[in-house]
């Protein structure tokens, strides 16, 4: 299918905008939207206005930013590693963030101010990245980098398991496990403002990476001859992904499959060019997370469904479908 980059991005942006509005409008309980909007504009602090501004708006904003981060970073990682199975979790920062967040939940429930959790998560993401850097060394090859990332992932996961194992009561276990499932319920504007700068820095570092990723598809040597410094590019993408994904995971927990599936989904529409995929994938990721987060509010389950569970449940079969379809295309 042929679509110009501008058309594709506009289309995705419109879908994302519609989903964003839907996300603000739809809740588990209905909200008189007009009244809420009027109260907000008049500066009237009614219950409806508070629900709109302080509960639904941050939720939709966080879904937008976190989804875009996951889609963008997934596309960047797949482009850099030239491997369709690469996902943003590979650099270790996601599990580093999750480990530190769980650590805060384990030791400080109810005793620390609420912003400590995302800040600790981001610190964990940075620490994991620094460890990967130290382990792999400055001039590391892609393989070494991945191996270091996998090792850090394993270490952080082991740490989380240890905390679960030592948890003081079944209630603590439940809270720790539920946090790791990924959820955007009841996040506040403060959470959004905390995640935004780090996410934006990550995104900004990926601006202009597209052309280099396109050259990289011709092979590392050829890319080098075209003026791309592979080591430099590698670190640039790794650090960008660490920052952005770390911020997302610290705020919403582990949300799987968006970073893996969305680039796959959109690749045919950008003529398989990794450079063009970046922006499209960011918008696509935002759409998918917004839609999934609307889904968890609409699906009537007894205990509230976590958005990370929904993305994995829908994502895995969808991924299989993509594989089957691509097999048919290659035959």
């Amino acid at each position: 299918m042929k679509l110009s980059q501008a058309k594709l991005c506009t289309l995705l942006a419109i879908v994302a905008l519609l989903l964003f509005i839907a996300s603000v409008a739809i809740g588990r309980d209905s909200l008189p939207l007009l009244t809420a909007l009027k109260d907000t504009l008049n500066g009237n602090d009614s219950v409806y206005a508070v629900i709109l501004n302080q509960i639904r708006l941050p939720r939709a904003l966080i879904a937008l930013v976190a989804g875009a981060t996951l889609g963008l970073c997934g596309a960047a990682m797949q482009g850099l590693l030239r491997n369709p199975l690469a996902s943003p979790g590979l650099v270790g920062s996601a599990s580093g963030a999750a480990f530190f967040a769980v650590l805060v939940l384990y030791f400080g429930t109810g005793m620390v101010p609420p912003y400590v959790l995302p800040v600790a998560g981001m610190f964990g993401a940075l620490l994991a990245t620094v460890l990967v850097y130290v382990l792999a060394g400055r001039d590391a090859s892609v393989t070494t980098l991945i191996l270091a990332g996998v090792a850090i992932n394993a270490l952080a996961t082991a740490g989380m398991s240890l905390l679960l194992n030592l948890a003081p009561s079944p209630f603590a276990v439940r809270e720790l496990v539920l946090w790791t499932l990924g959820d955007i319920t009841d996040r506040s504007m403060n959470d959004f403002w905390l995640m935004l700068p780090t996410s934006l820095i990550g995104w900004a570092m990926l601006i202009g990476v597209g052309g280099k990723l396109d050259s990289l598809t011709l092979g590392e040597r050829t890319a080098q001859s075209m003026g791309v410094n592979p080591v430099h590019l590698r670190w640039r993408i790794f650090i960008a992904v660490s920052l952005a994904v770390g911020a997302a995971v610290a705020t919403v927990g582990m949300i799987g499959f968006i970073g893996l599936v969305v680039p796959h989904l959109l690749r045919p529409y950008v003529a398989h060019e990794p450079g063009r995929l970046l922006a499209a994938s960011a918008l696509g990721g935002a759409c998918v997370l917004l839609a999934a987060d609307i889904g968890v509010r609409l699906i009537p389950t007894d205990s509230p469904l976590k958005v990370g569970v929904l993305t994995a449940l829908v994502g895995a079969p969808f991924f299989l479908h993509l594989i089957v379809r691509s097999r048919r295309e290659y035959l």
Partner: protein
Amino acid sequence: MMTLAATMGCSQYRFIHSLYSLKKNSLKSVSPLSGWLGLLLFLFFLSVRSVAAETPQVKVASINLCADQLVLLLSDEEQIRSLSMLSQEEAGSYFFERARAYPVNEGHAEQILTLQPDLVIVGQYSNSHTVAMLREVGLRIETLPIANSIETVFENIASVARWVGHEDRGSEVVEKLRLRLKNLEKPREPKPLAAGYDPNGYTSGALSVRGQIMEYAGFSNVASLAGIDSYGKLSLEAIINLQPDALIESPYSPGTYSRAQAMSQHPALLAAGLDPHVIHIPSRMTVCGGPWTIDVIESLQAERLKLMGG
């Protein structure tokens, strides 16, 4: 195997409620005596009403199962705006039937906010994002600690009573419960050895409500011998080594496969010549602490006598 009768609830509260309704009824029945007297009484009644209106009742919402039950125990019907979904579950909630009369919430900030309660009671492990959000929009939040001892159960009853504006009720319940605890028959030696047994071998030690229940009922706890203070895992080997006379289970999904029953029939235990007596307590009486905790002690005492006799 026995089942504890879920009878004793909050009879003391029905008593208080009946006192209130008595007062109102007597006023109503006297008022039509004669014109002036009637008017006077009417004015008096009005003034009583306006005094009541000056100190409005705290409207309360709870998003924690244990808080739900204490709220049901200690507040007036019209105070309760919402309880957690779990409050209506037969397996976990002692007052599950009474809870069905109230709206329930899934613990989302949005739901709680639309109810406009004066007070939200949350648990120590309630979703921290939700709690932070509710606090941020200016609701009064109180956190109910997890009860690790019968003393904390009493403290929790007193706290909830104070929060919902019925401190007197709280102290009355606690006083009665203390009296019942004091009047328990002093357990005589020898104390049979028992283990609390939850799925996958989890057990409760001396620093937990269930551990203290066992102590009060005159059992000695295997967990203490195995070095478990509050909550931990009891291995099959430890059970064989320590040879408990009884396993006390309280499975959350009754009627399904009982782990303690299966454990008591484990080939290794049978080979070791052990056949522990399995005591079953409904989980709605062990998930949270409350006045029913004392009922559990009393029936475990009876169970102990049965065990010693047989």
